[in-house]
């Protein structure tokens, strides 16, 4: 298993636990004011756990390329990992904060978080596309 896959999968496991803990928090009667955490918990689960697991396993298991880079560009793989996780963590902070104080730096951070996650997905597709081939 490549080192990058280990990073993807271990991070995904952390997101799984954190997202489910947030899921507990948002249904506790004493914390009903944390409704802003609902989209965060959903995205930590779907992006942090599901999508990140797929990215890690695809990087590892998809058909290899001929030549010296069987997994495609490792640099693009690392960029995917960094952009996706930086974006997700920025969102986890910005979205609840924006519900407390509209506009300003939290709005900028929220947009930036979306752009980073988008970048991570696009770079993953660019790096993975040549490996999706008839063998």
């Amino acid at each position, binding site marked *: 298993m490549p080192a990058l896959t280990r990073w993807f999968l271990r991070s995904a496991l952390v997101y799984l636990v954190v997202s489910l803990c947030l899921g507990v928090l948002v249904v506790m009667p004493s914390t009903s004011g944390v409704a802003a955490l609902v989209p965060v918990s959903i995205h930590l689960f*779907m992006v942090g756990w*599901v*999508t990140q697991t*797929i990215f890690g396993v695809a990087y590892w298991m*998809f*058909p290899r390329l001929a030549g010296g880079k069987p997994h495609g560009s490792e640099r693009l793989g690392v960029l995917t990992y960094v952009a996706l996780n930086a974006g997700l963590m920025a*969102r986890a902070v910005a*979205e609840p904060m*924006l519900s407390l104080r509209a*506009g300003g730096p*939290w*709005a*900028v951070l*929220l*947009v930036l*978080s*979306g*752009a980073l*996650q*988008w970048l991570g*997905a*696009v770079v*993953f*597709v660019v790096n*993975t*596309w040549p490996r*999706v*081939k*008839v*063998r």
Partner: protein
Amino acid sequence: MPTLSVWFIRASLVALVLGYTVGLLMLNLKAWTRTGLMALLLTPHVDLLLVGWTMQLTMGVAFWILPRFEGGRSRGAAAFAWIALVLLNAGVLLVGGGSLVRSDGARLAGRLMETTAAVAFGLHAWRRIKPASTGTAA
């Protein structure tokens, strides 16, 4: 990787980028304007990423790696899986497009297509879910 899996997986990658693009647009709306447009984009966003990306990628990989028949030469009733590919993608387009133009008929047709795609894929995959000793794993 068989041709059908290539189609499933490449279509899922396209849906991933489209779904994240819609998500980026939604975060922009949430950050600055908070208009009703966000609600309009929610269904296409969710459908692209749950059905177009996750479900479709799963089908593509399953068609590729589930145990085969005839000593590894056959994947069984592939026609059902091709039907699933077509219906799933048509369904995602109809649900997304129908949501954008507020057409309940298009959304309903799209959801029915997605459901039929799931049934078709189930009909294909059912017999391939078997002990490895009775066939060859891909």
